[in-house]
């Protein structure tokens, strides 16, 4: 097709952006405004990826608008890698690597060096990853990187700092009992995953006692290797020069584990195959929650906190059709951007709560994962309300879940949920920092980059029947947990309590 012809075709099918004559007029309704079509496409990954001598991938997104540089080094190591009795080891190793001195610097000297650069270096660890972050002005990035390398390779785990950290942790643990949200968190995880699961393991005085310098040195030596590590860099940098510098500092880092980090897997083009549907909703345990039912923890106070839910979902593939369906289901139930079902009822209609927080973990197990039961996260609806309204609010949550299990969601609601999910997509790639980070994360998680280019079309393909099917496979209200932390008598006897009893049984005080 000639270029001219192509232009003519585009002109013929594209609606006019603005009405030419009444350009200055204000339409009566916002729906009458005409916009240039906006279809966000994630920025191309091509040209962003580099590799160090040892195969560690580096994603660089330069942005010279401010004299700032962000560098993130992520390792696929976290709580999930702790053996029994090692609770908190991953987080403590990360925290003390930063705080306990490194290389030639003692703890105070290291803080001095970092602060004098006006930089920030932080290290932290969560369920599945350990992250070291350098955030500095561009003129000090070189010195900052040397400090970062020092923390990564030669942390000193200073004894005095460790002793102080342990003392603080013990104090925090005893303070945790005073915070209703912390109590809810801890007990909720035990009810859903069972007391033996690593998902519900929490620090105790005994596990804090077990942190000694040798334990941290061992954890660091065993788990902090280049296998699976990724680096993301953004800001005021020249990509080639930065990668060369990173290679000097991190390119000789030797693997401690036999298997090396591979490139991100590729998604098959076209519709996914049928065989992807053998996912399990509840890990190896098979039930929605370890101890289903209605549980209460008596707490005096003017506010009750409650959580309703079960285990999350686990898939073999990022592209499992049920995974896309559950993303929409969560959005319909309680999307942050849309006027969702829970928000409409709890907030707009009844004014029962200020905010509802819902999340549905849709984890994907790597083929290499030996222990799949630990991979499953949670599906949780959390809210706070006055104790007298706790049953009414929980009953609304229950009703809405049962409605999702009973009826197909109307097309208009699916469309609105889809719009809302797609509207948030640009936020994931909003700034160069996010772009480099997102693509590096793909590689860390084994998520193919193509995930983002099929994102829109996969969501568009989900039907009402798909959502109903996924709900029936993955949501189990009878097998769920309702945990209420609040003034017990008020919190179990309000409106809606009969409905909750019918499904979950009588409320039981939780013995701790």
């Amino acid at each position, binding site marked *: 097709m000639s270029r001219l012809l192509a232009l003519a075709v585009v002109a013929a099918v594209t609606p006019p952006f603005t009405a030419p004559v009444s350009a200055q007029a*204000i*339409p009566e*309704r*916002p*729906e009458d*405004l005409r*916009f240039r*079509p*906006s279809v*966000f496409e994630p920025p191309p990954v091509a040209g962003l990826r580099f590799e160090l001598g040892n195969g560690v991938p580096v994603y660089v997104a330069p942005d010279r*608008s*401010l004299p*700032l540089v962000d560098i993130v080094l992520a390792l696929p190591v976290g709580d999930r890698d702790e053996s029994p009795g090692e609770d908190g080891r991953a987080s403590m190793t990360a925290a003390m690597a930063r705080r306990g001195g490194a290389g030639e610097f003692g703890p*105070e000297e290291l*803080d001095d060096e*970092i*602060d*004098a*650069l*006006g930089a920030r270096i932080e290290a932290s660890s969560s369920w599945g990853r350990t992250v070291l972050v350098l*955030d*500095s*002005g561009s003129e000090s990035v070189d010195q900052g990187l040397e400090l970062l390398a020092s923390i990564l390779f030669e942390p000193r785990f200073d004894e005095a*700092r460790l002793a102080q950290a342990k*003392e*603080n942790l013990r*104090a925090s643990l*005893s*303070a945790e*009992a*005073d*915070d209703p*949200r912390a109590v809810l968190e801890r007990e909720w995880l035990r009810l859903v995953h069972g007391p033996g699961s690593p998902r519900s393991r929490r620090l105790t005085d005994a596990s804090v006692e077990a942190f000694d310098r040798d334990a941290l040195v061992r954890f660091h030596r065993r788990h902090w290797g280049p296998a699976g590590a990724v680096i993301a860099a953004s800001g005021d940098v020249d990509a080639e020069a930065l990668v060369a510098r990173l290679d000097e500092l991190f390119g000789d880092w030797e693997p401690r584990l036999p298997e090396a980090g591979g490139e991100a897997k590729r998604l098959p083009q076209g519709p996914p195959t049928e065989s992807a549907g053998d996912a399990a909703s509840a890990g190896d345990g098979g039930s929605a929650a370890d101890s289903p039912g209605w549980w209460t923890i008596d707490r005096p*106070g*003017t*506010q009750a*906190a409650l959580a309703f839910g079960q285990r999350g979902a686990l898939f073999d593939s990022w592209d499992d059709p049920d995974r896309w369906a559950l993303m929409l289901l969560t959005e319909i139930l309680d999307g942050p*951007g*849309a*006027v969702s079902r829970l*928000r*409409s009822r709890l*907030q*707009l209609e*009844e*004014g*029962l709560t*200020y*905010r509802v927080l819902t999340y549905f973990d849709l984890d994907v197990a790597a083929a290499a994962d030996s222990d799949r039961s630990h991979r499953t996260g949670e599906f949780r609806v959390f809210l*706070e*309300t*006055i104790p007298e309204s706790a049953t009414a609010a929980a009953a609304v949550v229950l009703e809405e879940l049962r409605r999702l299990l009973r009826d197909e969601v109307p097309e208009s609601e699916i469309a609105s949920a889809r*719009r*809302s999910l797609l*509207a948030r997509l*640009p*936020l994931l*790639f*909003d*700034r160069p920092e996010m772009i480099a980070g997102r693509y590096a994360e793909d590689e860390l998680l084994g998520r193919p980059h193509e995930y983002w280019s099929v994102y829109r079309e996969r969501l568009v393909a989900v039907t009402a029947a798909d959502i109903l099917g996924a709900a029936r496979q993955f949501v189990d209200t009878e097998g769920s947990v309702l945990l209420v932390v609040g003034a017990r008598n008020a919190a179990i006897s309000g409106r809606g309590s009969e409905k909750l009893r019918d499904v979950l049984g009588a409320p039981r005080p939780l013995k701790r």
Partner: protein
Amino acid sequence: MKSTVLAAILLAAVSSPAASASPFLEPTRFTLDNGMTFLIVERPGRPLVAAVWAVRGGSASDPPGRRGLAHVVEHLLYAGSRTIGTRDWEEEAPLLRRWERLYEQSVRRGAAASGLERVEQRLAALQRPGAYAGVYTRAGALGIDAFTRHDSTAFQTLLPKEKIELWFWMESDRLLEPVFRGFRRELAVVEQERRQRIDSSPAGTWFDLFDAAYWGAGHPYAHSPGGERLEVARLLPADARSHFEATYRPDRLVAVLVGDVSPARARELAKRYFGRLKGAGSRRAAAAEKPAAPEPALGSLEGLCACRSQVEIRYPTVPFAAAGDAVALDVLAGLLNSRSGRLYRELVTGEERVAFAASAEHVSREFGGYFAVRIEAGEGVHLPELTPAWDRLLERVLAGGARDSELKRVRRQLLTDSWRQFEQDAGLAHRLAAAEALGGWRQLTRWLDAAADVSADDLKRVIERYLRPADRAVLSLTRSGSAGR
């Protein structure tokens, strides 16, 4: 040696006023005939535009007996207009007036007036709660939120750059003819918000009470922006309307757009849409009505709390300014904070070692400011040991002065911190709006230049002038055993 010299030159370059934030922040500013101000920061390539508008006026303007009014109005502004939020405005309007009369009677009598419920039901059939957010989310907008602060109230939206005109339509529409629907429900939500933010945190209620004791009854900052429960419950729609009319005037409004939007286009749309707002008063009128705030009462407070034992020591200082003592106090906070700062080095890890954590903050607002130091007690440390330890620290700063290396560190941190705040579009939009409402956005960069000039002598001066043991208030919270165990 060579590299040390080079490093010193680099440091000097960074900490000199020449290397300020200014070159990185040059918004286009314009003001409409009605007095409304716009700031546009063009950032090509961003898929979303961060759009924020703020009104000069927050909880500090709540009238006596109506604490929480500004916050309630913030919520009500999401109820829509004559166009948005209704199925039929012609039919709704008289019903809404009748509902308001009945509701007013009910509040005055303390019992529901007859017919209130019936009118409420008829209204429910006509109204569309959530319609305002619905229009935005259908267009792919997100981050729809609002914030009531002491001196200002801000409303934010993030939307695809192609649809920026929708923001002009929606925001000018609700400013032009807002309709405060669902009044009763919104009072309940505001009440819930307060519980969730303040009442359910162990120390939250105490800090609220300390604000009241520190500033003293009747001071504009004596209550939290969230409001007072009993007074919120008694508010009437007429209160909300009169607050809206007095406060939400174009000459008190600032709008900021950050993203891929051209200043020329923004100016054209601003004129067309916001130009419709009527300028009710002149700038001079707005300036004249600023009341002189009373001196803080400096009331201290002691209590038991299901939290870590801690003290907060507060000293009255000066209102917000991008110069002089206000900036020196900000730098002093920088000297005390961070891991190489004095608080951490001397109270958390050093000789004194009395604290689990400690931080300093200079809070400066339109009608007054204070310098606050918060110290959480370390294990086995008694509360009465904390304040003397802080006093000794201050004496050491006065005796030895701030070292050059310390000042360099603080300047550098302040500079990179401010660049970081410019990085994120919505954050920058809020900062610009707040600074413009407090007298002009240039104060952001002027403040940085002033901070770079603060000397050790300046720090000594402000410590001697403001941080005097005789002029302070202290909140002391002792951990109350093991509540709820």
